C-alpha cells in the first residue's frame, strides 16, 4: 500500500509545464505527480515559481506549454471554474478574498446556497460557515463584518474554510499557515492529516521545512522556475533539502530534475 507505488495511476500529472511573464521564465518545463492521499510539499526560494506552478493547476494562470492529466486523463483547465469542476480547491497565497463582504459570502462565493425561491440563503450559508470556522479557528466570532476588518490569520482561516467546505479531491495550499498563530497552525496540520486520510491529494507550499517534514510524503524543490529534485521525505535530510533550495544540488536520495546542478549564470 505505498502511496507512490508506480503501478497506481497518479491523481494529477503535470508534464513539462512552462509559464513566461514577458522575458521571465517563471516556470520552466516542470513535471510533477500527485497521488491520492498524499501530501506533496513544494519548496524553493522566493520567486522560484511555486505559486505560478500551482496556479496553472488551479486555472488561475495560463500556461505556455505542457499538459495536465487528472486520474490518467487529459484535463482542460483554462480557468478557475474548470479547475473546480475537477474537484480542485485552492488556498491562494494572496488569499483572494473579496474584502467588502463577510466571511460566509467569501466562503460560498461562486457556489452560493439558494432558498427554494432561488434567492440567496444567507442564513444557511452563515450556519455552515460557523460550523466549518469552528473547526479551524474556534475563537472566530465576527461573521457579520466584512473580511477587510479581520486579522491576517482570521482572513487566512476564511480562505482555508472556503477550500475545505466543498469536498475537494485535490487541495492546493499555498503557504496556508504563514499568518497563523501556533494553535491555529497546529489545527491546520491536523486538518491536513485528516484530509489525507480521506484520500485527498494535497499540494502544500511552505517555507517551513520542519512542518513539511512532519506533513509531507514527498518534497519537490524548485529553483529559478525549474525542478531541482523530488524525494520522499524518508530518503533525504533537512540539510539536503536546504541544499536543493539554495544551491540546486540534488542529493543521492532524490530524483534529479532539469534544474539540478545547473551552471549559475546570475
Amino acid at each position, binding site marked *: 500500500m505505498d502511496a507512490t507505488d508506480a503501478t497506481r495511476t497518479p491523481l494529477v500529472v503535470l508534464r513539462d509545464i512552462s509559464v513566461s511573464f514577458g522575458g521571465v521564465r517563471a516556470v520552466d518545463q516542470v513535471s510533477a505527480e500527485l497521488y491520492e492521499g498524499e501530501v506533496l510539499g513544494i519548496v524553493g526560494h522566493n520567486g522560484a515559481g511555486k505559486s505560478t506552478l500551482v496556479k496553472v493547476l*488551479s486555472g*488561475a494562470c495560463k500556461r505556455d506549454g505542457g499538459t495536465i492529466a487528472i486520474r490518467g486523463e487529459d484535463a482542460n483547465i483554462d*480557468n*478557475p*471554474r474548470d479547475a*473546480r469542476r475537477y474537484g480542485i480547491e*485552492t488556498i*491562494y497565497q494572496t*488569499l*483572494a*478574498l*473579496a*474584502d*467588502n*463582504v463577510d466571511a460566509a*459570502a*467569501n466562503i460560498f*462565493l*461562486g*457556489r*452560493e446556497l*439558494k432558498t427554494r425561491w*432561488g*434567492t*440567496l440563503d444567507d*442564513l*444557511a450559508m*452563515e*450556519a455552515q460557515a460557523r460550523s466549518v470556522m469552528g473547526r479551524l479557528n474556534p475563537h472566530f466570532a465576527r461573521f457579520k*463584518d*466584512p473580511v*477587510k*476588518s479581520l486579522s491576517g490569520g482570521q482572513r487566512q482561516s476564511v480562505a482555508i474554510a*472556503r477550500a475545505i467546505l466543498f469536498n475537494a479531491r485535490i487541495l492546493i495550499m499555498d503557504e496556508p499557515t504563514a499568518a497563523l498563530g501556533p494553535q491555529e497552525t497546529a489545527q491546520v496540520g491536523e486538518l491536513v492529516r485528516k484530509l489525507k486520510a480521506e484520500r485527498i491529494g494535497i499540494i502544500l507550499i511552505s517555507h517551513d521545512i520542519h512542518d513539511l517534514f512532519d506533513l509531507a510524503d514527498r518534497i519537490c524543490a524548485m529553483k529559478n522556475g525549474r525542478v531541482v529534485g523530488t524525494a520522499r521525505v524518508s530518503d533525504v535530510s533537512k540539510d539536503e533539502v536546504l541544499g536543493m533550495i539554495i544551491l540546486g544540488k540534488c542529493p543521492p536520495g532524490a530524483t534529479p530534475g532539469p534544474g539540478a546542478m545547473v551552471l549559475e549564470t546570475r
Partner: protein
Amino acid sequence: MKPGRLHPLALFLRSTELDTRTLGLIAALLLIWIAFHLLSGGLFLTPRNLWNLSVQSSSVAVMATGMVLVIVTRNIDLSIGSMLGFIGMIMGVVQADWLPKLFGFEYPATWALTLAAGLAIGVVLGALQGFIIAYLGIPSFIVTLGGLLVWRGAAWWVTSGQTVAPLDDTFRLMGGGPEGSIGATWSWLVGIAACVAVVLSLANGRARRKKFQFPLRPIAAEIFLAGIACAAILGAIAVVNAYPWPIGSVRRYAQANHIVVPEGGLFIAHGIAIPVLVAIGVGVVMTFLAKRTRFGRYVYAIGGNPEAAELAGVNTRWVVMKVFMLMGLLAALSGAISIARLNAATNSEGTLAELLVIAASVIGGTSLAGGVGTVAGAMLGAVLMQSLQSGMVLLGVDTPLQNIVVGAVLVIAAWLDAVYRRRAGAAGS
C-alpha cells in the same frame, strides 16, 4: 463592542440593526426639508411641493439605482444622459410617427409597444458598451465618454434635430400630472399592501433566524421597526392624497364625466404619481437584485476584489456586461418618464443627467473606489439633490448659485462619507 457604555437609545437603535449610514442620510434630508420650510415661510413641507418633489426626483432616482451597481463594480457610466436623449427621441418617433402609421392614432397598445422598443434598445446599447468594457478591456470611463458623444449625436440624427410632440395620451401618464396619478383609493391600497409586505418580511426573517437558532432582535425592536416603516408609508400616502387636482383639470374631468361641480369645488386627490410608483418599483426590484440574488452578490464581490471573484469561479466579465445592460434599460425607462412628463421628445433631453445621477449615488454613500453602495441610499441621494434644487427655486435663488450649492454639497457629502468610513473602520465597524 462594549454595549455597557452606550446610551439606552443607541443600544436600542443598534438592536434594530439599521444601517447608521442610511439613518444619517434620512436625518440630513429631514434637516434640509425643515430648513427650507422655515426659510420659505412654510412653503416647502406642503402636499403640493412634496408631490412635485417626488415626481421630479423619479427620473434621476431610477437611473441612480443602476449607477450604484456600475460604480460598485469599479466602473462608471457617463453615457446615460445621452442614451436617455437618444432613446427618448426614438420612443417619440415610434409613438408619434411609426405606430400611428401602422395602427392609427390612439391605438391602445401604442404606449406599451413604444416602451418595449425603448427598453430593448436600452439593453442593446448597454450591452454594446458593456461588451467593449468587459471583454475588450477598455476602461469604462473612456467607452462611456465616447458613448456620451455618440448617443447625443445620434439623438439629433433621429429627426435632424426636430422636437417630436405631442405624444400618445396613454404614454404621457408615465410622466405624472393629475391624470398620471393613481388617485386616493388606489394609493391607500398600495400603502396598505406595502405595510403588509413590510410586516411579512420582518416576520419571515425572524422565523428563519429562529430556525437556524441565530440571535433574534428583541421583539420590541421588531415592532418599533414595523411601526416606523408603516407610519412612514401611510404618512407619505396621506401627503400625496392631500394634494388636490387643479381647478382646470377638475372642470375638464367633470365635463367629460357629466358631473356637476358643487359649490366650493370638487376635491380630487392626486395620490401617488405613476413615475413615482415606477421609481419605487424599480428601487424594490433593484434592492432585491443587489441583496438577494447571486448576480448582486457577484457585483459586490467584483467591486471588493475582481481577481478574487474571478478565482472563485465568478464569470466577472459577463456580470459586468449585465450591469451595463441593466443601466441601459434603466436609462431607457428614465427616458420614457422624462419625455412623457414634457409631452415632447427633444434631442437635448437628459443633458448632464449622468452627472446628477453619479452625484446622487455618491451622496447616497456609493464609493467610487468600488464595492460599497446601496440602492436605497442612491435613491435617497436623488431625493436630497432634488430637494436642494426645488428648495432653492422656492427661495428664489439664481440658477448659478444653485449649481454652486449642489456642487459643494456633493463634495461635502463625499468628505463626510470618507470620515464616517474611517471612523467605522477604526471602530471595527
